[in-house]
């Protein structure tokens, strides 16, 4: 599954980084402490967070994150969108809770181990 398919499936708004929508998604991560995400987010994951400040872009690039989803109807800062565009990092918006989106992504098989 790639970022574009996730965007369409959940009707996520693309706030920045449309050039990165073809990226493959290998898993998911939920986290609002950047130190935690920097240490633990899987490479190529879709990252769900409430943090909209520009440091999320540097963290996403560092961990080779496929896309960032801002949950709970949060808006990213203008600086964030500018930096995300430069990095072709998709920043997507979801109005509901991270819990719901994470659950539904997991149910779709995102980040679950392949069947034996």
């Amino acid at each position, binding site marked *: 599954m790639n970022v574009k398919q996730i965007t369409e499936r959940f009707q996520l708004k693309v706030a920045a980084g449309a050039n990165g929508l073809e990226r493959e998604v290998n898993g998911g991560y939920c986290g609002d*402490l950047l130190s935690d995400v920097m240490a633990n987010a899987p490479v190529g994951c879709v990252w769900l967070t409430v943090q909209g400040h520009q440091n999320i872009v540097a963290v996403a690039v560092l961990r080779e994150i496929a896309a960032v989803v801002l949950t709970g109807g949060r808006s990213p800062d203008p600086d964030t969108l500018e930096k995300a565009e430069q990095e072709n990092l998709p920043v997507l918006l979801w109005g509901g809770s991270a819990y719901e989106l994470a659950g539904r992504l997991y149910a779709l098989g995102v980040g679950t181990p392949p069947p034996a």
Partner: protein
Amino acid sequence: MRLKDFKADLHVHTCLSPCADWEMSPRKIIRRSRELRLDLIAVCDHNSAENADAVMREGRRHGVCVLPGLEICSREEVHVLALFGELEPALAMQDLVYAHLPGENRPELFGHQIVATEADEVLAESPRLLIGATGLALDAIVRATHDRNGLSLAAHVDRPANGIIQQLGFIPAGLDLDGVEVSYRLSPAAARTAFPAIGPLPCVTSSDAHGLAEIGRARTVLRMAAPTLGEIGWALRGLHGRMVLT
């Protein structure tokens, strides 16, 4: 004892902080502070005080009082200022922070971290992840600051990113802060209304300057006998005629 009104900007970054501009060198910071007629500034880089001495020396040469400090990131990712009256306790605090700060910087992602001399020469680049979070809990940082005779202020509490109110939802009752800092975005008076969580804590405002044009964009006027840390402590508590004027 004659009291005077001192214009202070208690939160100024240098080129050591990865998110700060290259131009935030000791000389330029002091020159700009003089232009703005600031009496007192505090140098607070992320998780470090390695440029404090250079700025202090340059400040002494040009009549700007400089206090050494750090902007420490707690394990809860709350930013808290540690202000000191002298270099030695600031460096002792730095030692503690460094002992609990994992990671290496990536300058291409986070920015360069320049350790500078008072003549604006590049001494070194710090390899540490200064933008990272320490493993120190917030109350441990406050206690360690006090143990080293420093003042502990929650940084930019009105700001969502790394502000205590956003990160924790409230200011913990038992946390022995000396005050809170409000960003340039609103006045302390407006902040008290917008953020009742501040409660009775003393409130200062500063620039959090990462570039020369930002220095002094917010400042606190302190009525004190002298620009020392002890006097600032009294001003925050409203003791002996010292006070925070806003």
